[in-house]
Every structure is written in structure tokens, then in C-alpha cells.
């Protein structure tokens, strides 16, 4: 899924080498052209550059580049041409092999005519560069410059191009040149507009918009209707993109809130230190990576998989400790629990601040989580995708755990009726402690995920706690599906509001919406029914 430019480039380069005419034969052709540059006559140099560019010789690019950078020199004695490397040593311009003694050299001089020749030559050369990324970039450059002089080179390149994706780029570039060119006939220009419409992105829109007023009316009409069509498609894509961002934000919220949903749902405990459990998970990731970096650098790519169980255990253990030491004494007094856990959160924050320092810690993103790819006009970054998948997995695992395991059964029994569950022989204290541990452990897992997209600082948890509460309260307490729906609704609503209202105002609107929503449904979207709620 993730783009591997290196591999593709290598394959393409091999193909080019195999399929094109034998390079040695062409190098023969190039030699006299290069030799012609060892002169004082600018016209000769410019002519040689143009001829060299179309010769297809592999020496063409380095020689012309060297000329552009004033690194092309010739020996006065025998007019042998050399390239001066950045290190100061010389290589032969004909073969690229190093030479030991270049003797007295003079640079090949440039004037504006030569520079123009070089620019044109470079465009043509990169269009036929063995590296597909460079070819694509060159096609894009022509698309933007709409330089009519590149047209012959472009035609030639399209004929040779084997990579369908790049050929499309080149055809679009040619279409751009044709549309912009006043000499082309009307029918060609309108066909070209069709090609550009198929491209359908912002650049295409800009290209069509820049059509001069002197263009024939039929061409202008075609461009206009193409623009409208492109805008319509782009608007749809933009909405899709926003929904995607919303899903991504929603899964972050889900990860942060789901542990809270468990502790609040089962035990009625508002755990204000929940955000700090997330923070501890993120710091666990940092520590795991630090250890791996010194002990086993080869494992850095799988560091997150090592950090996940560690974060679960560390945060879970701290959670159980908090439950046993503090919260246990405060059951039935939710407001006091709220205050005590707020105290815990302050202590944990300050502890981490004293230990790791107040500044952000750097957590490395493994290579498989970096990069991005496009589906249509939808840009998808790998780390966001990974977090969405991870959130879905955590959610599914938790759901299975609660529905299919004996411990889950006991937990649900305690949620529904604590005293009855106790009477049936369930050790409710034990269930409480482990449920709290589970909720905290999941917060730790969330921390590992968030360490990839957020700053790992002692304040990490603070940023999520209010949002998490909103999700839980909105979705309804004690219902995992409610949390899922709540998180996704808030995430997507937030991102859909952002383009219209701005990030901050959008968030304020959502907060106000939730405050009003609670008036209507004081127990959230999916409230537990029955006597257990009071």
C-alpha cells in the first residue's frame, strides 16, 4: 500500500536500459558534440547543447548540468573536455572516468543564448531521464510552465514512455501546452481541454482559469464547462477528505475515551486521571524506544509492538494501584472521586515532568507508518490509517472480551446490578480493581497511538480529558457502542464544521451542542435502561 519509490525506480531504470537502443553506439555520437563545446564561440556551444540533448546519450545530462554550473572546462593544449567535480577533482566529459592530471584548463563560458539552450535541453533531458520520479516531475513542470518549446521533446518522450502513469502526466502536459498555445487549431484545443478535465485537480483548474481572453469563444466555453465539472468533483472529494479526517479524529477520540467509558460505565467512577494514563502510555513508548535504540537498533521498526503490551501493563498497574489505594475508599461518592482523581492527575503530571523534563520528548515513527498515498483525490497518511485500524481493533477486542469471557460476564453483571452480582458470588471488589486496571491499560494503549501524532509532553493527557468526557457523556455511559458512535459523530462533525467555522469556533459550537444535548437526553445517546441507573 505504501509507495516504494526506490524499487519502482530501479525496475524502470532497468527497463529503460534494456529497451532503449544500445547506449555505447550513442555515446560515439555524443563525443564530437561534446568536443565542439571546447570553444569560445557561443553559437557553437548553444548548437552543441541542443544537439547533445536530442542525441539520447547518457553523457548528455551530466555534461549539460556541468556547463550550467560553470563546471565544464577544457584543456587548452588539446581541447579535451572535463567536468570539475564538487571535490575539485576532474573527470572526463566523454566517459565520466576520473583523470589524474587535467593540466591548465579554462571554463566553457556562458551567455544568455547558451543559458536558454541549456534550459530547453534540461527540460527535454529530464523528460527522458531514466528515473521515473524525475520524468514525472519534468512533466509536471511543463504542465505548469506550458512552454511551447518543450512540445517536440514532450512528443518524443510520450512515444518512448512505458510507465502508464507518467505517460498520462506527459499527455496532460502536452494538453496544457496545446490549450495555451494560440497557434493550435480549435478542435485540438478542445480535445486537450478534455484531457485536462480528466486530470481534475486544483492545478487543472488553475490552468483552465488562466486561459487568455483572446482565445476563441468555443475554446473558452469548453474550458468554462470543464472548470465547473472539475469544481463539482473536487467539492465531493473535499467532503470525502473531511469525513476521512473526521474518522481519523474520531478514532483518536475513541481510543482516548473508551477506557473512560469502561471505568465510568462499570464503576460510576469519573477518573480525571485518565488523561494521565494516556500520557504514561506515550512515555512508555518513549522509554521503550530509548532502550531499543541502545540495545537493539534493529528492532526500532517494531518498537510500537513492543511498546503496546508494555504501555498496557504499566498504565494498568498504575490504574490498579490508584483503585486499591484511593478510589476504593470513595465508592458511592462520585464527586469526591472526581476530586481525588484530579489530585492524582496533578501528581502524575508533575512526577513525569520532574522525571522526563517539561519539554516534548521525541518518539520515532517507524518507517511503515510514515508516507502517504492517494485514492482518487483523497490523501491518506499511513499513520492516520494505522490509528484508525488500531482503534477498530481495540474496540473489537474489548467488545469480544466483555461479551465472550468469564471476566467480561462478571463485569457486565456488576455494571447492571452490583449487589445482585455480589449475592451471586462475584467478588465485586476484585472486578472493580481489574476493570479499573483494564480501563487504564487501554488508556495506555491509546497513549502509544497518540505518541505518533501528538507531542509527548506531560500535558498530553490534559488535551484529551475534556474531549473524552464529552464523548462518553454524549454517547451514554456504560455502553461501548455509544462511545463508538459518540466518538465518530463528534470527530466527523468537528472536521465538517472546520472549513466553515474555523477550528476553534467549530469546537466551541460542538461544546455548546453537547451542553444543549445533555439537557435533552441527560444520560446520553444510548442510556442504560432500568433501575441500575439511579
Amino acid at each position: 500500500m505504501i509507495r516504494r519509490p526506490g524499487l519502482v525506480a530501479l525496475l524502470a531504470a532497468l527497463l529503460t536500459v534494456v529497451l532503449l537502443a544500445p547506449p555505447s553506439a550513442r555515446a560515439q555520437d555524443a563525443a564530437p558534440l561534446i568536443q565542439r563545446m571546447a570553444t569560445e564561440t557561443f553559437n557553437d556551444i548553444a548548437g552543441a547543447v541542443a544537439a547533445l540533448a536530442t542525441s539520447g546519450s547518457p553523457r548528455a545530462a551530466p555534461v549539460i548540468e556541468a556547463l550550467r554550473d560553470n563546471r565544464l572546462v577544457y584543456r587548452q593544449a588539446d581541447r579535451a573536455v572535463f567536468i570539475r567535480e564538487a571535490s575539485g577533482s576532474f573527470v572526463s566529459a566523454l566517459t565520466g572516468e576520473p583523470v589524474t592530471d587535467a593540466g591548465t584548463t579554462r571554463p566553457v563560458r556562458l551567455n544568455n543564448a547558451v543559458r536558454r539552450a541549456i534550459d530547453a535541453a534540461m527540460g527535454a533531458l529530464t523528460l527522458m531521464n531514466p528515473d521515473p520520479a524525475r520524468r514525472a516531475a519534468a512533466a509536471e513542470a511543463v504542465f505548469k510552465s506550458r512552454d511551447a518549446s518543450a512540445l517536440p521533446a514532450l512528443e518524443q518522450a510520450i512515444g518512448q514512455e512505458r510507465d502508464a502513469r507518467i505517460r498520462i502526466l506527459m499527455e496532460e502536459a502536452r494538453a496544457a501546452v496545446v490549450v495555451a498555445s494560440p497557434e493550435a487549431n480549435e478542435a485540438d484545443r478542445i480535445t486537450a481541454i478534455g484531457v485536462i478535465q480528466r486530470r481534475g485537480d486544483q492545478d487543472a483548474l488553475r490552468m483552465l482559469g488562466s486561459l487568455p481572453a483572446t482565445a476563441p469563444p468555443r475554446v473558452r466555453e469548453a474550458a468554462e464547462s470543464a472548470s465547473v465539472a472539475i469544481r463539482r468533483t473536487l467539492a465531493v472529494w473535499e467532503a470525502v477528505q473531511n469525513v476521512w479526517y473526521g474518522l481519523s479524529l474520531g478514532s483518536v477520540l475513541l481510543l482516548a475515551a473508551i477506557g473512560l467509558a469502561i471505568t465510568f460505565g462499570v464503576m460510576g467512577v469519573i477518573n480525571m486521571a485518565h488523561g494521565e494514563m494516556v500520557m504514561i502510555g506515550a512515555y512508555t513508548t518513549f522509554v521503550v524506544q530509548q532502550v531499543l535504540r541502545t540495545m537493539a537498533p534493529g528492532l526500532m521498526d517494531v518498537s510500537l509492538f513492543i511498546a503496546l503490551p508494555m504501555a498496557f501493563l504499566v498504565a494498568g498497574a498504575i490504574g490498579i494501584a490508584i483503585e486499591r489505594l484511593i478510589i476504593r475508599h470513595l465508592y458511592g461518592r462520585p464527586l469526591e472521586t472526581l476530586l481525588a482523581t484530579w489530585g492524582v492527575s496533578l501528581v502524575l503530571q508533575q512526577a513525569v515532568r520532574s522525571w522526563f523534563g517539561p519539554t516534548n520528548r521525541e518518539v520515532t515513527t517507524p518507517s511503515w507508518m510514515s508516507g502517504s498515498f492517494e485514492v482518487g483525490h483523497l490523501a491518506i497518511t499511513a499513520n492516520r490509517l494505522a490509528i484508525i485500524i488500531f482503534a477498530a481493533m481495540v474496540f473489537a477486542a474489548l467488545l469480544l472480551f466483555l461479551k465472550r469471557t468469564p471476566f467480561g460476564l462478571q463485569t457486565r453483571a456488576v455494571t447492571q446490578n452490583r449487589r445482585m452480582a455480589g449475592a451471586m458470588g462475584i467478588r465485586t471488589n476484585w472486578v472493580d480493581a481489574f476493570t479499573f486496571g483494564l480501563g487504564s491499560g487501554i488508556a495506555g494503549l491509546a497513549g502509544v497511538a497518540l505518541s505518533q501524532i501528538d507531542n509527548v509532553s506531560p500535558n498530553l493527557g490534559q488535551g484529551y480529558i475534556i474531549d473524552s468526557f464529552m464523548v462518553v457523556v454524549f454517547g451514554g455511559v456504560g455502553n461501548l457502542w455509544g462511545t463508538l458512535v459518540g466518538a465518530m459523530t463528534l470527530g466527523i462533525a468537528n472536521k465538517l464544521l472546520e472549513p466553515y467555522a474555523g477550528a476553534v469556533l467549530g469546537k466551541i459550537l460542538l461544546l455548546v451542542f453537547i451542553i444543549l444535548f445533555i439537557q435533552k437526553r441527560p444520560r446520553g445517546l444510548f442510556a442504560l435502561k432500568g433501575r441500575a441507573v439511579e
Partner: protein
Amino acid sequence: MMLTRFLLEKIDRTGWIFLVLLALAAVMVPVLNLAVPPGSPFHVSNTAVSLWGKYMTYALLALAVDLVWGYCGILSLGHGAFFALGGYAMGMYLMRQIGPRGVYSHPILPDFMVFLNWKELPLTWWGFSSFPYALFMVALVPGLLAFVFGWFAFRSRVTGVYLSIITQALTYALMLAFFRNDMGFGGNNGLTDFKDILGFNIQSQTTRAVLFSLSVVALMIGYLLARAIVTSKAGKILIAVRDAEARTRFLGYRVEHFKLFVWTVSAVMAGIAGALYVPQVGIINPSEFSPANSIETIVWVAVGGRGTLVGAALGAGIVNFAKSWFTGAFPQGWLFALGGLFIVVTLFLPKGILGTFTDWWKRRGETREPPAGKAVGQPAE
């Protein structure tokens, strides 16, 4: 006369001690600060006056929180919002007083508006050049917000932690809003660089001493008012709401009306506290809205003693004194201490310092008087 009798007859012994001490402070601190030369051991330093003045406004805020939390069981995690709104109303008056003395010397617009290239005063700022109008807004804005918010929340029977969380959402939303430059309240930097208040230089020591005394007087009035409310018949119903809301409702009381009344009064008190706070510290910015500030207020009340009024004021003083000392001596330690305080107080001192002390005192003098009319009931849900 009637009003004085009404306000004074319900004061218990702790209350009298509190009032007398406050009255002494209101008179003595300015005298010791202004009349006694700096070398003397009785001199009260200038920093102490502004610091204590700040504590007095905090104490008034704590009193407001105690009124709703201690007596009505509404744990507000958003009282800082009312405090800050009152503060902003006062800050806007003080900004208008700067007049052409700002950095950009604009005759009307405050500096930050000139900086934002605004051409005229936004509607929200109209009238703030008048002190009576500003005072009116100090009470009106927090009161109105509390009334509307409470009207919806109490009528829909949003209670307990749900209410706490939406009060927190309220103050968080306001914080985000006030951070926006477009709101026209100075954005990130808030309002500052005040010059004078009612024509008196805000930097002068006399003004500061007077502000201190005014804060003390406001605290005394706030206490008398709160005490009058909680000892009245309505106060009994508030306590009933705190301890058994559903039962009170079944007895035929319109619970939401009582809650709404005390909630609004409390918000106005918090707003006045904020208005006194701003001229003494010389700045108001959106961080005053931060949820952490509101929660810290709760710990003042919890430490001092929830449902005791005097205890709340005392707690505000003690915790803030400790904060000043800690941040001077061990800057690293303050959050540990504050966090520990939350835990220790909720676990071991559910009645706070004053409540625990009163209990101990009563047990000691059990034979002297029957334990009647005690303010501290069972902890509410």
C-alpha cells in the same frame, strides 16, 4: 435596620469571629501599610497588601462555590468562568479609562483593537466607559449566563457528575472563545496595562489599600448574604436538595427553582470577586477560564470545609498562601502538594479543616450545648 437585623441575627460564633477579624483587617492593613513607616516591624509591605487583596477575592469566589456545592450539592467545575466574566467586565471599564494614553494614543480604541486594525468600538464595548454601567455588567453577565445555563440544566434534571462535566465544558468553551482575537476581548493577551480607576491611579499605594479594604468588605457582605440564605427557610430546602433531591421533589418543592436561585446568586458573587481581582493583579486573560482554575477553587473549599462558608474562605486563604510559599521555595513541589491535598482531603478530611475542628470542639464541649443546627450534613451524592 430590618435588613441589618435579618442579616446579623443568624450569625454563629465562628461567623462573628470571622467578621470581626475581617473588619479589623479592612481597617488595620491599610493603616499599617500607609501610616506606619516601612522600617517598623508593624509595617505591612505593599506586596503583602496586593497579595492579601487577591486572597480576599479568592475567598469570595470560594464562598460562592461553597454556597452551591456545600449547601446544594451542585459541584460546579466552571465557577472560574463567572469569576473571569466579572473580571473581564471590570477589565473593559479599566481599558476604556486608559483613553489616549495607550501605546497607539488612539482616543477611544484600546491598543489591541488598533493593532488588529479595527476602526470602531464593537457593540459589546459600548457603555463601558461608565463605571456604574460596568458594575452593572459585572453582576449581570455572570448572573445572566448562570441563569440561562441553570434554567436549562436544572429543568432537565441534569445532576451529579453530568452537571459537573457540562459546567467544565462551559468554561472550556468560553476559554476557547476568549482566546479568539475576533471576539474583541484582547485574545491571547487579554486586557492589561490599566492606568486608573475612577480617576485614581491604579498603581498608587492608596488605591491599592482601598481596593484591599473593598475586597474585605465585599467578602463580609458576601458572607452575610450567603449566611442569610443558608439559614433561611429556603436554605433548609437547599440542604434537603443536597441530601435527597428526589425526596424533596416528591414532597412538592420545585427543586429546580431553589437550585436556580442559589446558582445565580453564587455566579453573581463570583463575578464580583473577579471584578475586584482584576484591578489588584492588573491583568485578565483567557487562562482564567481554564478548567484547572475552577477545579482548584473546589479544593480551596474542600480543604477549608465544605458547607461551612467560613471554612471555604479560610481554605482559599490557606491553599493560596501555601501556593505562594511553595512556588517560591520549591517550584517543583507545588503540583505534588496540590494533588496530594486533593487526595488527602477527600480521603481523610471529608469535612475539611473547619468542619473537623468544629466536630472536635463540639465533642469536647458535648455537655455544654446540644449539637443543634449544625451546618455540615451528610456528604451528598
